[in-house]
């Protein structure tokens, strides 16, 4: 199929799907299946309108926006500490990771750098939010494929990580801990030792998931060769994070642009997989969790002493300018473009969220797959609706 006919087909399908948004009719040829906003397989309120021929998808289109909360408009009337509290809720599973690019962009505008201890602990909490987020992915992939038990193991072991985050920040899901110039508070006594215990439990959970889910032959037949994304297509659609690395693209912002973090001082590696199918995406994330636990162990051993907060004024007014910082969030690349006019609130904040670009590949990817494979592919792409819709 040449590119021209693909585009024509996509235009035709988009026109039909636009009709289906207004009035849902049963087409005479094929069937339009609306995996509507309320569906257990889409992680949240994503709507996928699929045109089926029997059990095979002819065309599909995702319709997002059911969870739009107006973040970028909200930030225009909130002060910087308030925005930090709100931004936790974009990608609610990787809680701390949402605050970091915003804080880094604001620090860049103010010309402040956080002290080393704050940078180390920031990296530590960033990795812990990655671990928490990806543990849930590992369990959730099982649920989407029909194995309900791995999800319970995932939640059980995720609780330990959340307990550790709560012990530092006071909140399990919404830490609200990052501040311009450093962090809000310091670590309580005994926390570093306990965190290393928790990382041991996470590693044993990874082994359990590998034995229970990944090595099951049924899992391999369900995911190998399903939803193959070639590397050049992945780059064109702007995939990031584990999705891109599973297609063989060796790109990790933690290594290539570690602005504000201490990744250069740690001993770790980036995991890629050449296949680009759903199995590869699962495998890459599993290895990333293991790698993160090792990184957290290294950070726990190496946190330097020192102040936790740089000297910042009480009332924060960020000088005029614009800054864009993007970081390697658990879901992909998340970036904040902050435009300030020197007032209490920013003039404009643009949030580049990873899941929005990750979902954009679904029309291309879902052509010709079976209905059960839609579920597998969506589960392996791993998006959070709050991240898509903001």
């Amino acid at each position, binding site marked *: 199929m040449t590119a021209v006919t693909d585009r024509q087909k996509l235009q035709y399908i988009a026109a039909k799907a636009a009709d289906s948004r207004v009035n849902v009719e049963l087409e005479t040829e094929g*069937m339009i*299946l609306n995996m509507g906003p309320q569906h*257990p397989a889409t992680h949240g309120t994503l709507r996928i309108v699929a045109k089926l021929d029997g059990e095979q998808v002819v065309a599909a289109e995702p319709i997002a926006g059911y969870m739009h909360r107006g973040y970028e408009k909200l930030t225009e009337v909130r002060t910087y500490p308030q925005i930090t509290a709100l931004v936790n809720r974009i990608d609610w599973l990787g809680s701390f990771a949402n605050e970091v690019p915003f804080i880094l962009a604001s620090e860049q505008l103010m010309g402040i750098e956080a002290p080393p201890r704050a940078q180390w602990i920031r990296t530590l909490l960033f990795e812990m939010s990655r671990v928490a987020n990806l543990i849930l992915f590992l369990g959730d992939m099982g649920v989407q494929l*029909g*194995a309900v038990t791995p999800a319970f193991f995932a939640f059980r072991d995720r609780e330990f990580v959340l307990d550790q985050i709560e012990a530092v920040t006071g909140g399990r899901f919404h830490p609200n801990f990052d501040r311009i110039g450093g962090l809000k508070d310091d670590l309580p006594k005994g926390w570093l030792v306990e965190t290393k215990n928790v990382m041991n439990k996470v590693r044993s959970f990874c082994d359990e998931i590998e034995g229970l889910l990944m090595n099951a032959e049924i899992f391999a037949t369900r995911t190998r060769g399903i939803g193959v994304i070639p590397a050049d297509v992945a780059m064109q659609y702007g995939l990031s994070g584990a999705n891109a690395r599973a297609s063989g693209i060796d790109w990790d912002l933690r290594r290539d642009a570690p602005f504000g973090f201490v990744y250069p001082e740690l001993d770790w590696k980036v995991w890629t997989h050449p296949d680009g199918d759903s199995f590869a995406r699962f495998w890459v994330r599993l290895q990333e969790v293991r790698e993160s636990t090792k990184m957290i162990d290294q950070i726990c051993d190496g946190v330097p002493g020192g102040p936790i907060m740089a000297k910042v004024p009480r009332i924060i007014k960020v000088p005029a300018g614009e800054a864009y910082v993007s970081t390697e969030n658990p879901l992909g690349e998340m970036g904040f473009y902050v435009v300030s006019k020197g007032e209490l609130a920013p003039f404009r904040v643009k949030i580049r969220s990873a899941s929005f670009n990750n979902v954009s590949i679904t029309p291309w990817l879902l052509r010709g797959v*079976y209905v059960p494979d839609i579920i597998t592919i969506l589960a392996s792409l791993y998006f959070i609706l709050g991240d898509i819709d903001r």
Partner: protein
Amino acid sequence: MTQVVLHPMLGLELAYWQETIIRVLLGLVALLLLTGGVVYLYLFKFVSFMQSRLGPMEAGPYGSMQLLAEVGKWLQKEDIFTEDSDKFIFGIAPAVVLASTFLMFVVIPAGPNAVVADLGTGIYFVLAMSSLSVIGILMAGWASANKYALMGALRAGGQLIAYELPLVLAVIGVVISAGSLNLQDIVAAQSDGAIFGWTGIGNPYILTQIVGFTIFLIAVQAELTQTPFDMPIAESELVAGYQVEYTGIRFLVYFIAEFATAVAFAAIASTLFLGGWQLPGAWGISDGAMNAIGPIMISIKAVLLVGVVFWVRFSLPRFREDQLQKLAWKVLIPLALANIVVTGVMKVVF
């Protein structure tokens, strides 16, 4: 029939119709008790322990009354018919599925005399009755006027019919070994049989028919639409598939039918492969004692096999529809046919 029968245990004289009523009632009670026990034990407790949690604990001691609470909850729900659904067929589809389940229990023996109807073609009747549920599922899917239900029902139709064949073929090996279709004869053949002349544990067909046993269990898993073969229900995609539009009593009927069928198939498997209600004949337990021990024995064996079914259900992910069909047609049926050939040869030679 006005034939008068002396009831073995009570020593009373009963007409045929009276005896039939007693048998049917006792059969129903046994069926519902076993189903309820299995639901509690496996669906509430065993799966919870596998998932590192406790399951229901509040309703009754250790949550034992949870099933009654659930039944009460389902009974008091509103009986909803969607506007476009075909109301008559939508209404009786659960009854068709339940009828096929109850009919399966008619021939399962639980003791020397404890069987509702001792048919000469016992196992054939059971397998025929189990296929009736497909009709009920297709009725439910089509009459629901819901695309998800329709997809689930069509998948179920394909899957259940495909897995009927391994089910039947696996049983033929046992029938050849026992030489009869009657379930009581199969039980007797196992308990009175001998392994290379040693009668210590009789001759349970699980030992000689291990391949048939495995195929039977896999086919049972598929007939019950349990993971890894639960494409028709596929919770994370179709959200209950053909059952999606049902609430209240009708959903309860599907729920009971699913677990009662599980118990029925497990009882049949234990009758065919584990020796049923009999203990090995060499142990010399009298018939009178077996009247009491028999039901207990078959209950234990059936519950154990249901446990295996649920253990597999809650541990494995599900197959896709075409992979499922490939497994049935390309793997299980050739294996079952090979099993029949080998069994036949062995039976003639030895």
